[in-house]
């Protein structure tokens, strides 16, 4: 059952990603990317990480992709004439892909000492995640939120005063 679901989600994820890269319309590409993200969430759920699965849907498929859609729509305007050329014109992605595959192959060979197949009980549950986030990695977590705060302040400063910065 799990294996069937894993291959199903995996195949759909890859299919969605490929369709996102090759689709000619930017909006369609974003929609395919959302589809790929939802399938990635399915794989997280299979890996006993329900929090990660739901965060994936909430943040990536929900919030960030909505932002992408917004930007694409606003920049392209309400016209459906695609300005994107076929991806077949660009040959440079072939070596990049080859490097990525080689990297994956190398990682496959690296010894997996210290990693176990089975996560400790409750690892991916909300309590496990919260304990790691608010104890062990608290400083990192707070620093990331500080970075986000700086970004918010910057955005507000840019948008609020057309004459220049408030300072």
């Amino acid at each position, binding site marked *: *059952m799990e294996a069937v679901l894993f291959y199903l989600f995996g195949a759909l994820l890859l299919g969605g990603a490929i369709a996102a890269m090759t689709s000619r*319309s930017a*909006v*369609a590409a974003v*929609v395919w990317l*959302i589809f790929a993200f939802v399938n990635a969430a399915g794989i997280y759920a299979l890996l006993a990480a*329900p*929090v990660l699965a*739901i*965060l994936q*849907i*909430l943040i990536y*498929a*929900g*919030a960030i*992709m*909505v932002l992408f*859609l*917004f930007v694409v*729509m606003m920049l392209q305007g*309400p*016209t*459906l004439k695609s300005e994107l050329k076929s991806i077949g014109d660009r040959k440079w992605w072939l070596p990049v892909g080859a490097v990525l595959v080689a990297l994956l192959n190398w990682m496959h060979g690296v010894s997996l000492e210290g990693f176990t197949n089975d996560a400790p009980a409750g690892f991916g*549950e*909300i309590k496990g995640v919260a304990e790691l986030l608010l104890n062990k990695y608290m400083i990192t977590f707070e620093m990331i939120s500080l970075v986000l705060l700086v970004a918010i302040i910057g955005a507000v400063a840019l948008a609020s005063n057309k004459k220049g910065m408030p300072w």
Partner: protein
Amino acid sequence: MEIITKLLTETFGLQLDNTGQLVAGGLTMALIMALVMATCAIVWTWAERKVAGFIQSRYGPMRVGKYHGALQPVADMVKILGKEDIIPDDADKPLFVLAPIIIFIASLLPWAAVPFAPGFIASDMDLGLFYIFAVSSGAIVGILMAGWASNNKWALYGAARGAAQMVSYEIPLALATIPVVMRTGSLNMNDIVIGQQGGIFHWNAFHDPFLFVAFMIYFISSIAEVNRGPFDMPETESELVAGYHTEYTGMRFALFFLSEYANLFLVSCIATAVFLGGWNLPVGNAVVLPGLVFLAKAVLLVLIQIWIRWTLPRLRVDQLMHVCWKVLIPLSLLCLLGSGILLMVSGEIAA
């Protein structure tokens, strides 16, 4: 789900293993939830017109069906199914077809975690509340797709407004429920309802002032989240024709309509479960007719939402954003802080 599988195995004598139980129970539950959604649309369109009529001193539908136009929604449904299915020539056809389906799915999925009665919940998952917010955010993508694919300026404006509004109001909506999660110590919808046993002052909304304010914030944001008046900017008839579903007809339009009324009922059900004690009675610990008690509370909330829609005039877009970012979000953060301090002082923190 337990009730359903029990019914299937014992009453109908089905022989099922674990996977079979999961699949059969899940399918039955999904069917029930789809029926709940359809019933929502039928009952609420009628109720909405009758309440609107009452508020505006007129009768509302009176002719179809014997009693007060009771069959009006059925007549409407027949009419809408008989309409021509139009896809504009310049529309982005795959996205145009996909958009209502995505919105419908996003409004069907959250029902899986709504606890109607003890044991009557499609999926008793630990992250229930979190799950509901996550899957219902998919509707925003559907709205943007509908607006874009229609290739119509009203639809695009409506979609942009709708997405901005829903993304913004999701924040106070979720923040308002966090004090409840802190008090209960769980995101499981069943646990949240069980934690409110013992009379009206144990319900989260009336437990302490901070939670009451949180309930109010949730209620206001939920009206905005389902795009209803006075927050129905995405579909303002007077400026945008119909907003993001301007170009839709027939069954595709019906899917938008169905999702809207299902969402209306959904946010009321969540408010009932999270803030108003779910199936618990206002007095005592006894569980009497839990499903009916739950539905009665949810129906009351829906009627209040209809009342608000037909009483208040529509806000402007900037006023809408002002309310969200400058009033509701700071207020919900204060609630979070206040109820956290209260929990610490009273020593009520769930271990």
